């Protein structure tokens, strides 16, 4: 039935990022590389983080998976590259909150930008992990990169 319901999951923004992902491909330099997978569905991502002092200088990735997981990786890189680690982490937390909201939260477009398109995903418990895969990989890699560079926090 409900094209509306379906469209709330597969927003045009998501399909756009899926078809033309941003920042895709593994790049040098980087301080940490991680490989995360979603064991229930086989979505996979290899992700690198490059820090420049306190700033997320680059995030590059390669992976395969469903439209939600791939689009989320693309949107995530747009949101964190160029930001101070603390600010990027705050965006991550806001996105996490949105994913846990069961569709009850009005997303903050100023913080989340294109990621607001994922609001509908929070109503599909089986898909939340897909949307979070890249974010979790980024968080993990960033923590490792901070350790590597003897980061300040």
């Amino acid at each position, binding site marked *: 039935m409900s094209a509306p319901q*379906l469209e709330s999951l*597969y927003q045009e923004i998501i*399909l756009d990022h899926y078809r033309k992902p941003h920042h895709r491909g593994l790049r040098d330099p980087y301080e940490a590389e991680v490989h995360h997978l979603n064991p229930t*569905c*086989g*979505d996979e991502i290899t992700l690198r983080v490059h820090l420049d002092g306190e700033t997320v200088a680059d995030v590059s990735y390669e992976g395969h998976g*469903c439209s939600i*997981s791939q689009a989320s990786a693309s949107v995530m890189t747009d949101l964190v590259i160029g930001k101070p680690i603390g600010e990027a982490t705050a965006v991550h937390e806001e996105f996490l909150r949105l994913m846990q909201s069961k569709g009850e939260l009005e997303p903050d477009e100023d913080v989340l930008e294109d990621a607001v398109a994922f609001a509908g995903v929070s109503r599909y418990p089986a*898909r939340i992990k897909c949307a979070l895969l890249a974010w979790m990989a980024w968080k993990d890699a960033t923590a490792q990169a901070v350790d590597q560079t003897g980061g300040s926090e």
Partner: protein
Amino acid sequence: MTSAHAPFDVARIRKDFPILEREVRPGVPLVYLDSAATSQKPLAVLDAMRDYNERHNANVHRGIHTLAEEATALYEGAREKVASFIGATDSREVVFTKNSTEAMNLLARVVPLHPGDEVVITEMEHHSNIVPWQLACERSGATLKWIGLTDDGRLDLSNLDQLVSERTKVVAFVHQSNLLGTVNPVATIAAKAHEVGAIVMVDASQSVPHMPVDVATLGADAVAFTGHKMCGPTGIGVLWARLDLLEELPPFLGGGEMIDEVTMAGSTYAAVPHKFEAGTPPIAQAVGLGAAVDYLSDLGMDAVHAHEQQLTSYLLDGLHSVDGLRVIGPPTMESRGGAVSFILDGIHPHDVGQLLDESGVAVRVGHHCARPACLRYGIPATSRASLYLYSDTADVDALIAGLGKVRSFFG
């Protein structure tokens, strides 16, 4: 045997399964094509379990009061039904477990293995016939060997003579693959294994529900299957094994029910099958499985199999007609059953499954607990449609129409 059964009438059979009448959302009827994950249950099974709980519930083998006698008779009666369903000559060869997974773990736990021994499995196994043997090999120092796959989804038996040797103690493989639908040549592999004195275990989780399986002629020494895929409830599975093998093997779990005599110095064990059934068993579930077996026997497994074969052929034709669709597994009806995996060019199975659900069509997506096989075919996941005795051409038509919508959505 077949002549005694009423003609196979799917429309009538569907009425035995109330869930098939439900809608997944208002106006969207359920199209259930995920029976390889779990089958639906007919009223006869639901009624038998309810009757057991309402009228006969008691613990088994532990009392002389009327209910305890009745419960014991029902539980042991279920064992006899299952035994005769699979052609076992002696019901003591039927060990009740929680599911197939536990049945295979049981065997992998108790078969003696030593450093230098080898266990042979295949690349199309379900994780439940991989991990228990990996664990057993880690524990014992034995080595795990793998039978590979061909491009069209069959076992590559060309090097069977090298893989199975004097060192081989166990050869364990799936009868019908849940991922690929392939039906494997049990007799051929078993003959080779028996030449070297190895134990042959067959994972029959996807065959016992769908075709006549006769353990007396199959060639296996042990067979595992699971109640919930054969019209029965969850929480009950079966390990069938040759009586002499069961008698020779040490116990699995320890506890009540499985002992003969317990002293502070040590214990002796009950006779099989009770030696392998520690603790209060899943009694209502066994009763439910007994009713499921009656239901299947009344339909006739030959007739069930013939129906599914016909419908699988219809399903394959339908899938082959979808643009950009590739079947993973045997593309023809030769030695295959009604679980059909496929991928759609450029559209991830997750998205396929999600969009099909919008049309009420339930398929499974993912690696189907058979990741080594997915890796073999270079795919992270598939979509899988799987049929059962209550599936009909309308189900298949709904799937094919749904796939058309998926293509246009992502096209």
